[in-house]
């Protein structure tokens, strides 16, 4: 039995993706979802698991119709889905009344329910969010052993969204636990409990690769692998500058970095280290490909405060530095120290 496990598709989300890509980003998420469905059809995948947050907010009827159409193109694949905290089943939700096509098996109850796929002697268990938050450990259960193979479809894993405990999942008896909610793909238990992660990154902090989990349940157990699939990636990069660097060299460095890591990706750069005290980085004008969300300038002017203090112990510079002793480098006060010293040194008369 071969399956594909996706989660956190967030259809309808419009993530910030830089000037070049933001406007088309919402459609790209739909396209990506559509590509997964095509892939299922192509590979004749037996089971598609959708572990919650298929939609970013409450689904509209027309959106459900679109999704259902895509599901209807599957000639072989059975689909099991649950609702997560984003598309939770509130009063009046279309999830309550929508008529899905035959191969789709929603587990929309607020209590644990299951769907039996006799063909594979497989039962898939799951529940859906009917509120934005669920703080109880709803997944501390044992597999009921109603079929030869049993899968748990689950959503959550933090304090406000069904906390999970690894050791409990480990001894639960499920063959596979398909997790959703956390956007970064990761294995909680190797080959047994995995977060597929968001199919496409949906937030500027969803860094790293995104895609889905492909797996197989055989006589010999479960085998899964992560398949990178997203069309873009958010990349955060720290760039260490030195005293020799200027606006031009930083810009060039950023450009070549983007070129080598892919112009399709979306970037945030953090400039760190010590810059020449006379150089100020004009980060507004370094977005060559329109795919930089932010350049955060955390550089410090290359001052040696101790030395400066020793040299100016008795004058204004020294008296100023004196007031800032013992602050951490990332504190607001340290920033004030640096700005002040810079202003003072820029205004030396001799």
């Amino acid at each position, binding site marked *: 039995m071969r399956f594909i496990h996706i989660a956190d598709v967030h259809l*309808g989300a419009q993530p910030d993706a830089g000037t070049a890509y933001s406007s088309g980003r919402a459609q790209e998420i739909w396209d990506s979802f559509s590509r997964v469905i095509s892939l299922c059809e192509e590979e004749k995948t037996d089971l598609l698991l959708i572990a919650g947050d298929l939609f970013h*907010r*409450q*689904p*509209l*009827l*027309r959106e459900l119709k679109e999704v259902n159409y895509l599901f209807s193109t599957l000639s072989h694949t059975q689909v099991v889905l649950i609702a997560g905290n984003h598309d939770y089943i509130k*009063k*009046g*939700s*279309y999830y309550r009344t929508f008529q899905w096509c035959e191969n789709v098996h929603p587990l929309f109850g607020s209590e644990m329910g299951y769907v039996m796929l006799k063909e594979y002697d497989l039962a898939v268990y799951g529940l859906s969010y009917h509120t934005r938050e669920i703080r109880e450990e709803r997944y501390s259960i044992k597999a009921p052993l109603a079929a030869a193979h049993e899968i748990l479809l689950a959503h959550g894993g933090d304090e406000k969204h069904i906390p999970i405990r690894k050791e409990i999942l480990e001894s639960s008896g499920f063959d596979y636990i398909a997790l959703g909610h956390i956007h970064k793909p990761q294995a909680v238990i190797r080959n047994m409990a995995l977060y597929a992660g968001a199919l496409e990154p949906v937030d500027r902090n969803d860094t790293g690769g995104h895609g889905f989990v492909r797996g197989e349940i055989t006589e010999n157990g479960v085998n899964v692998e992560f398949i990178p699939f997203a069309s873009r990636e958010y990349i955060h990069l720290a760039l260490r500058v030195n005293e020799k660097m200027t606006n031009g060299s930083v810009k060039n460095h950023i450009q070549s970095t983007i070129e080598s890591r892919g112009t399709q990706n979306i970037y945030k750069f953090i400039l760190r280290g010590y810059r020449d005290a006379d150089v100020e980085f004009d980060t507004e004008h370094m977005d060559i490909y329109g795919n930089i969300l*932010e350049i*955060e300038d955390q550089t410090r002017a290359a001052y040696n405060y101790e030395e400066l203090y020793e*040299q*100016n*112990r*008795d*004058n*204004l*510079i020294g*008296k*100023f530095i*004196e*007031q*800032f002793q013992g602050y951490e480098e990332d504190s*607001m*006060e340290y*920033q*004030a*120290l640096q*700005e*002040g010293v*810079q*202003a*003072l*040194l*820029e*205004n*030396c*008369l*001799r």
Partner: protein
Amino acid sequence: MENMVIKELYIKNFGKFSNRQFLLKDGIQIFYGENEYGKSTIYAFIKAMLFGLERGRGRAAQNDEFSRYEPWENPNYYAGVMRFTSGGKTFRLERSFDRYTKSALLICEDDGEELSIEDGDLEMLLGGMTKESFENTIAVGQLLARPGQELAEELKNYAANYYETGSSTVDLGGALETLQNRRKSVEQEIKGLIDRQEEKKEIVRQECRYVTNDAQRLQTELEVNQEKLQKLRLVQKEESQDKKAEDVENIRGRNVVEEAGPGADTDNAKSWIALGGLGIAAGIAGRIWSAFTSSQGVFSGGAISVLAWIFLGIGILLVCLGGIKWLRGRRDGRKYQEPVQEKTVVELRPQTRTELQRLEWENDRIKAEFKEKQIRFQNLQEQLSELDMPGGKLKSLRTSAQALKLAEEKLLEASRNMTQGFGKLLNKKASHILEQITQGRYTKLLVDEQLNMTLFEDGRRIPIDRVSCGTIEQVYFALRMAAAEMLCEDPLPIIFDDAFAFYDEKRLKSTLKWLSEQQRQVIIFTCQKREQEILSRIV
């Protein structure tokens, strides 16, 4: 100490003088001359040699120094030479002021090296003293030689750097301005960011308005449809005498934002109450009957008795539930409009029936669309509230603005501390000088940041405007000398231009005595002979 001593003035052509040479010695040098002698011209010549003589522009040019001392004869030849020693070397300073041959030359006579005035070599020899500070300290003019307000600024700036040990001198005002400009630009960036966020929100709000409009349009459509339905039902009523109609739900009066949930079960509740009433009646009847048929205890009336108890129980339960349901229904009914509920009919004309059906489908379509709008509206509201949360960039910008503000405050605080120290020292020095020249009459002089002065006599506070002109002059003198001492490390010549007119004999004597003790050249221009006389008695 690198005393500067003016050795020679050679006036080539300046004011009333041409080709005049004056030789000066170290120590106190007195230029005596009657009125119109040309003392002020010499004084102006020294200033012009040290700091240049710029020609004013426009109307101001008519009475500026340049015009005043433009040579009486041959004005195109407007020049002079000054020789002075500084740091053990002799320098020759040549200047030409006229508009065509304007030039300046500084040569070290010991090694013949030419120095660059443009690069600030002369400024360095003058210990960084500017024309303004020169006039505010060591160049003491005629009458009421109150130092200008610029001295206050200069002292403040200087105060901030007073304890300097060497590496750098800072322009406090400039540094503060830099910080303020930085903060302004950060605040501008914050504003830009908020504006952009607001634009995004406005787009969402606009969409909300569209959705609301659509919902309202749908509602009107529904009302129209409803009316048609009602009319058709009237027709239908006439067609069949049975007055029964279709279930129609009215969504009028319901807000888009509110959850759906009309109270449709009041009828249901009524039937429950009715059923419950029936049960109670049956139970009581059963009980009465079993009481008649049996004389035994209450709980042993046989099967009928048990049944009667059950009927009674269920009856009461149903009445209660029905009551609760009915009450809730009524409450909901106030919130939402009471649904119109009528029963269906069978026999109708075919065209009426199709029309009725069409209208009902239309009703369903409108309601479905309305719900879609409702959900869309809620989603947009959610999006709007998410947009209210400040992003990381905004947070870091706010921190920067905060840091810049703090830097400003701390810088001011640091300078205030230093000014206080400086002020104390200035007061101490000025008080000491004043005490000496007033022979101990005034022991204390307090000067604040704005150069407001207060005198103390035997611990009594005396406002400066209560004392005589002569004393005021002496107070200014003390302040000037104290400031000069603090502002300029290398002593420059002190120049007095008829500055002692208000001094009495005693005070003049002690002033000259004090001056003679200074390690400075002192140049005194006077139209009286008493300075010379007193000085000869002291020395």
